[in-house]
């Protein structure tokens, strides 16, 4: 009830809240200017430093804040909001944060206005100073410059959080109870900062996965054209304020912000030609493009490759997925427009339809893998992805390795392609089709030990003879040692020959006895001199060791 509060207290409280609101706006906007803030402590109070904190007042910002407040104070249902957004040089814009100063009905009657409330408001401003450096927009704002700028907008009334995209996070800066209500200061910030771009993008995305190229360091503020978050020192007179561009509508440009997945895949050029579906142990398949299904509920990636093209095209480009937390959207494939590459990604979010995503992958000549689930039978090829989605940290290079193994108890003869015409290393050591079953220990158990029973003995001998005939094929006779990655035409000597030749080098001369014996005596004699020299230079050595630590 207002009667409990004296009129002086009430006036003081209103003044505190008003100046708190103005200072809040100053702190937030100054934190997004893109430069380091430094104010001096002063032991003698100046009387104009509200809340005992040295916070500069930028006149334009104060003017905007007062305009938005229009003489009112934050109250229930009427919050003061500062919206921070980013605008690129092409005109795309995106809301990054909304800072809200709200008031609710929960009153604290006992609290002393002039003392406790004031000090707690001061503490809250300090917390605001700390928190403004911690949200993702701070790092973005420090790098603003030619490519994008940070804008602010102040409005009063209902909080509008819809422009932040889905999955935004909130952080509460703090609360202060007053006799007329509880003041709450909080920030809602966007998590997914990915722009859709068909241009080249960076290999190493920053923490929040924003893909904007050509970041430059922000130039000196006064030289840059009008940016609303810019502080120009000369305009203190208050007469003319530059028109704030974004005090009009909330930006609603419809660029796509559906968050991509969390993995960073790099397709590297391998030495494979066109590997047909053969039965080898591991098959490194260069991944052309992956289409992901929609079921990401946790950070683990589960996907079904809709169409994977494998071919001899040039695939040395990064397929980059920027990180996003709490992603609940399908993954977006971002591909540059290189020749033979994936066509530029369409800019609307593909919400859960694989059909859309199949558009992105061009099946090249080569193997066409049909969509396979990991639990398929022996007949279909089992494709398992060994790389998982990692939360948070982007990796530059992550090769996906497709491991295909023949089931241990497979009995089906696989006789599709012979090994000989494959240009894979150790091709001749790849298990041949015919012997696969004979040599498989699961099918043919190893020789059983000697038994006394003649019946069993005959069986045994039969088995051993059978296996011995089979064993002739097991003797690996090295006809021509072709080590991996060696080519005959470049060097007359290949790795194997080199290794064989230089396996036994001659002994070092210093290790041979007679020379060693002679120099040993000399060494012993010269030791005292050497020690004396070292002792003289001990200080230098210590300094050197210090530098190493």
């Amino acid at each position, binding site marked *: 009830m207002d009667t409990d509060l004296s009129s002086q207290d009430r006036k003081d409280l209103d003044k505190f809240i008003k100046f708190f609101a103005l200072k809040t706006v100053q702190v937030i906007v100054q934190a997004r200017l893109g430069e380091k*803030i*430094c*104010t001096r402590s002063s032991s003698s109070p100046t009387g104009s430093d509200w809340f*005992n904190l*040295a916070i500069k007042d930028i006149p334009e910002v104060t003017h905007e804040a007062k305009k938005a407040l229009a003489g009112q104070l934050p109250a229930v249902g009427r919050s003061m909001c500062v919206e921070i957004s980013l605008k690129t040089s092409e005109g795309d814009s995106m809301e990054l944060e909304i800072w809200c100063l709200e008031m609710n009905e929960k009153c604290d009657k006992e609290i002393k206005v002039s003392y406790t409330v004031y000090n707690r408001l001061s*503490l809250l401003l300090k*917390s605001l100073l700390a928190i403004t450096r*911690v949200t993702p927009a701070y790092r973005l704002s420090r790098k603003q410059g030619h490519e994008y700028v940070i804008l602010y907008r102040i409005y009063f009334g209902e909080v509008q959080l819809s422009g932040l995209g889905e999955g935004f996070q909130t952080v509460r800066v703090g609360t*202060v109870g007053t006799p007329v209500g509880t003041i709450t200061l909080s920030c809602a910030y966007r998590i997914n900062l990915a722009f859709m771009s068909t241009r080249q993008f960076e290999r190493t995305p920053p923490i929040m996965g924003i893909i904007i190229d050509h970041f430059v360091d922000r130039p000196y503020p006064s030289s840059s054209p009008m940016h609303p978050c810019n502080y120009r020192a000369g305009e203190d007179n208050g007469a003319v304020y530059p028109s704030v561009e974004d005090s009009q509508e909330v930006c609603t440009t419809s660029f796509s912000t559906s968050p991509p997945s969390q993995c960073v895949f790099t397709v590297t050029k391998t030495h494979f030609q066109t590997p047909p579906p053969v039965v080898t142990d591991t098959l490194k398949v260069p991944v052309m493009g992956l289409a992901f299904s929609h079921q990401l509920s946790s950070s683990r990636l589960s996907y079904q490759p809709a169409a994977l093209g494998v071919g001899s095209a040039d695939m040395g480009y990064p397929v980059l997925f920027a990180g996003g937390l709490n992603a609940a959207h399908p993954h977006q494939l971002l591909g540059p427009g290189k020749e033979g590459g994936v066509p530029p990604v369409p800019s609307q979010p593909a919400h859960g339809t694989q059909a859309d995503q199949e558009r992105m992958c061009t099946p090249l000549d080569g193997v066409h893998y049909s969509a396979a689930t990991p639990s398929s039978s022996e007949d279909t090829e089992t494709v398992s992805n060994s790389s998982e989605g990692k939360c948070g940290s982007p*990796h530059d290079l992550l090769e996906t390795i497709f491991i295909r193994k023949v089931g241990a108890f497979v009995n089906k003869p696989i006789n599709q392609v012979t090994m000989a015409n494959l240009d894979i290393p150790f091709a001749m050591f790849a298990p041949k089709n015919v012997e696969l079953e004979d040599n498989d220990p699961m099918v043919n158990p190893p020789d059983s030990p000697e038994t006394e029973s003649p019946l069993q003995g005959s069986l045994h001998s039969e088995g051993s003879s059978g296996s011995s005939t089979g064993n002739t094929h097991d003797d690996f006779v090295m006809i021509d040692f072709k080590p991996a990655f060696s080519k005959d035409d470049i060097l007359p000597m290949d790795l194997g020959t080199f290794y064989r030749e230089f396996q036994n080098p001659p002994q070092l001369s210093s290790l041979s006895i007679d020379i060693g014996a002679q120099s040993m005596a000399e060494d012993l004699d010269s030791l005292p001199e050497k020690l004396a020299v070292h002792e003289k230079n001990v200080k230098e050595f210590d300094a050197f060791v210090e530098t190493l630590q």
Partner: protein
Amino acid sequence: MNCRAEVLEVSVEGRQVEEAMLAVLHTVLLHRSTGKFHYKKEGTYSIGTVGTQDVDCDFIDFAYVRVSSEELDRALRKAVGEFKDALRSSGSDGMGQISLEFYQKKKSRWPFSDECIPWELWTIKVNVVNLANEQERQICREKVGEKLCEKIINIVEVMNRHEYLPKMPTQSEVDNVFDTSLKDVQPYLYKISYQITDSLGTSVTTTMRRLIKDTLAL
């Protein structure tokens, strides 16, 4: 009276220890420092102004705000430097903790010396990791930056619970509550201590020494 205790844990690389500790300690002290008190007659006082400045970290993708006071910064750097050296020379597997304790002095009668009664204790447990290559270091920079952001949010959350704070003292009592030795700001009385955990998980001589000193002081 119960002492409020908060524990924060960080895993950092060796060269990040100093910046990470300074970031946390400065953030706590920002909240626990006021301007200088100037007592006037009739028991009223006015408070000076606290300035702030941004600090960028070199080895971590992180920036924080600290009080603009060179003396305070020097004191913290000295303490953190000692902690870092102790961590490095201990030969343990790089685990230790540094504590920032806010206390109040209670004057006792002769021959007993003043009692130090802590009312808030911040402990930062540090685990030093060794990284093998540059790529890991780059990831570590970002990860530690993110972790420190979380720690700052935790600290602010605790600060905003508005739990016990010492009463504003009269002029004669101000030295029992605040550290008035600095010329531009006035933090609450604090002390920083550290201990290095050896590989057995037990703490070593610094704690023992402190314990003995404290019991003797009583």
